[in-house]
């Protein structure tokens, strides 16, 4: 039994230590927002936050995060920065199929938390690991710029 601190709650899970967080979160803890895309950390659909930092849950064994706070897209609305990013995504009508967008939003939120005013190059650098097969990258950039503006306004 491993206790996972997930979305602000302790979840005792009957899993082996080597199980990737992705499957523990989805199959066992029952949060569905985190998506499986590649299983090798190549596409970013499974991006979560571990103590606020972005991580690929498909290649992170659950045993390695005991005691750390894991946040998924399912609970991002509780995060003020996350909320602003989600709103920017809606205002920009970013999503097409939407499958990768949870991961995109998690990566974007992590970027804006460490760098509230990223340049276009910094946005690309932070987001290049997140694949969107529908090709929504231009709107993702627009949404991140909008969220950045709103963050500044919120602070002012």
């Amino acid at each position: 039994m491993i206790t996972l601190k997930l979305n602000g709650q302790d979840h005792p899970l009957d899993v082996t230590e080597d199980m990737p967080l992705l499957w523990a979160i989805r199959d066992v803890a029952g949060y569905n927002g985190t998506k499986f895309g590649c299983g090798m950390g190549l596409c970013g659909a499974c991006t979560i936050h571990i103590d606020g930092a972005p991580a690929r849950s498909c290649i992170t064994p659950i045993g390695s995060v005991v005691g750390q706070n894991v946040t998924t897209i399912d609970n991002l609305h509780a995060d003020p920065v996350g909320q602003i990013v989600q709103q920017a995504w809606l205002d920009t009508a970013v999503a097409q199929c939407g499958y990768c967008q949870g991961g995109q939003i998690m990566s974007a939120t992590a970027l804006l938390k460490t760098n509230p005013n990223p340049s276009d190059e910094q946005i690309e650098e932070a987001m290049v690991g997140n694949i969107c097969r529908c090709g929504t990258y231009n709107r993702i950039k627009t949404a991140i710029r909008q969220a950045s503006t709103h963050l500044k306004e919120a602070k002012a």
Partner: protein
Amino acid sequence: MSRLPNDFALSNLSRRGFLKGVGATGALVLAASWGWQDALAEDKPKQFGADGMPNGWIDDPKVYVSIAADGTVTVVCNRSEMGQGVRTSLTMVVADELEADWAHVKVQQAPGDEVRFGNQDTDGSRSMRHWYEPMRRCGAAARTMLEQAAAAQWKVPVGECRAQLHKVIHTPSGRELGYGELAAAASALTVPARDSLRLKQPSEFRYIGKEGTKAIDGADIVNGRAVYGADVHFDGMLFAVIARPAVYGGKVKSVDDSAALKVPGVLKVIQIEPRPLPSEFQPLGGVAVVASNTWAALKGREALKIEWDDGPNATYDSVAYRKEIEAASLKPGKVVRNTGDIDKAIGSAASTLEASYYLPHLAQAPMEPMVAIARYKDGTCEAWAPSQAPQVTRERIAERLGLPFDNVTFNVTLLGGGFGRKSKPDFVVEAAVLAKEFPGKAVRVQWTREDDIHNSYFHTVSAEYLKAGVGKDGLPSAWLHRTVAPSITALFAPGMNHEAAFELGMGFTNMAYAIPNVRLENPEATVHTRVGWYRSVSNIPHGFAIQSFVDELAHKAKEDPLKYQIKLLGPDRQIDPRTLSEEWNYGESPERYPIDTGRMRTVLETAAKAAGWGRQLPKGRGLGLAVHYSFVTYVAAVIEVEVKDDGTLIVHKADIAVDCGPQINPERIRSQFEGACVMGLGNAVWGEISFKDGKVQQDNFHMYEVARMSLAPKEVAVHLVTPPGEVPLGGVGEPGVPPIAPALCNAIFAATGQRIRNLPVRYQLQGWQKAQA
């Protein structure tokens, strides 16, 4: 999910039974919708558009619209949502004619049931063009019934009652009744006759053609609440992964599952039988590991020891195959269009130009890998999956499990991308087969990305050869084009070595340039893997070859490519596709959908103007142009590219001009063309699936690379062109892809002088400056 009356299912089976008698194993359902019905039903008058689709269309508001006592309007969406926005756009159409307030409108996804809902195959860029009119009538009929119900309650003539924004108003007295208050009475009324309906004038539209309607699933998506295939969860559910043959047609010789069964959580190992080739939409077979969670199933699969018999396709090798189809492209083949006398014209031409182009296989690789859930109990099966073809899925499950059609229920989830891969229900049938082994339990089959890339239904591979006889004016008097590519129809029957009419009709036989002597040929190509629909399908190779070659001709003539294109199009005219030997025409009527060279010219000029065509650019930068007509929509693209010293590309801008006829949801149209541009760039720059010893050589996104943010244009602008006069709707989902690769490669040529004739571009530009010097 409610079960249907038996007669519905029986009438359905008999229709499909007809197909079964004719050809390959009753496997022609999707094929029929793509144009095979012409060969099967010669005695029937040809039907077009939605009329020509299996199970046609339905416009009954009692099927599609319900209104609750609180006024909530629920619209059923019969098409699958995969990012094109169809759940929003079709609902907008109903809501508009219904005079509904968008704030009180919901959408409900239809299960697979075409007798009730009409055709549900979400493919061919035709959801809006086939369903716009039936959905308008649904909305208008429901609106009329609400007005009638109000008139009856007030005991006034219905002509004095007018529906407006979720209520009916009695105009003379100003009395009002809300839709919720009228719903019960209205639903008891007879649906008004089709020809009695008053459809709105465009000036009255509230949502159709307007900006600002938010995507109906938007909030669920950004909160992680949207339900895709793998998000369907049942208590006590079992999780399976399958080891499939790596070679098409391979079989299990022996399997040792002792180590797999020792993995904690693994419950059972089950062998799945393949269908004899061709495999159609049935599973490839293999060995399934069923476990209590996905991770245990994956570890169990790793522990399997399987010996395979690779079968007849074990020698499929992309290097050798390329030589084979390139050689075939240099020899005469089956003539599919012949105008004038090309030999004579080439013989007397001032000069000639020839070029060969090659495009490899691609995999759709939607972000959501294949996944399906099924539950079997007491001779019934219910399944859930992200599917573009719900009816076909239901049929295949029934066939495979030997169940009556109406004992199978199929529910459609959101699709995490489709691009044609999810038109094939092999993965859902796998779940149904496994579920039968565990009666009463839900079983989920999860494909990994490796499974997806190894066992896709691949985009075709093709060799394209072109030769032109060029006059003193620089224009071609003769045009010879050969296309050699394995056909999708080989999925359904053996010996299908030529492209079908629906493949040739994608930008090949319907080539519309004003050239007096034209011969188009399709030499044979054998098929060694599953070839299937991939967004834009055969338009990708045909469009790339033709638009690259036209650019080469312009360069040879020392002409500006835009001016050359317009000369080559000739005077504005409407061409009956049948005069080009094109009978397919995307299933649409040739009278209603002629090929309009004026609309082609307009999109070219629009894209060129927006891009500042003709302006001077620094060294290493270039503008490239391409135009392509597909899915009865006209699209031109201008791409501005920079080729760095090391050969890497920066796409600075893409200007896409689109004439898709009337625009129902302009915002979603723009998003589709933005996305198609990015996907087209990925196809062109990185996309390649290759085979060796019959096996796909790529495993995951590090080997099968797709467009990332770094390849996306720094700026992309979609320019929606207002069509001239009254024209019907065109397609949106697919026509954005074909012009992108040639526009990019034409831009690369403008920037570097290096012509890219073989895709992907990948590292071909390394050292371009040396080559130039």
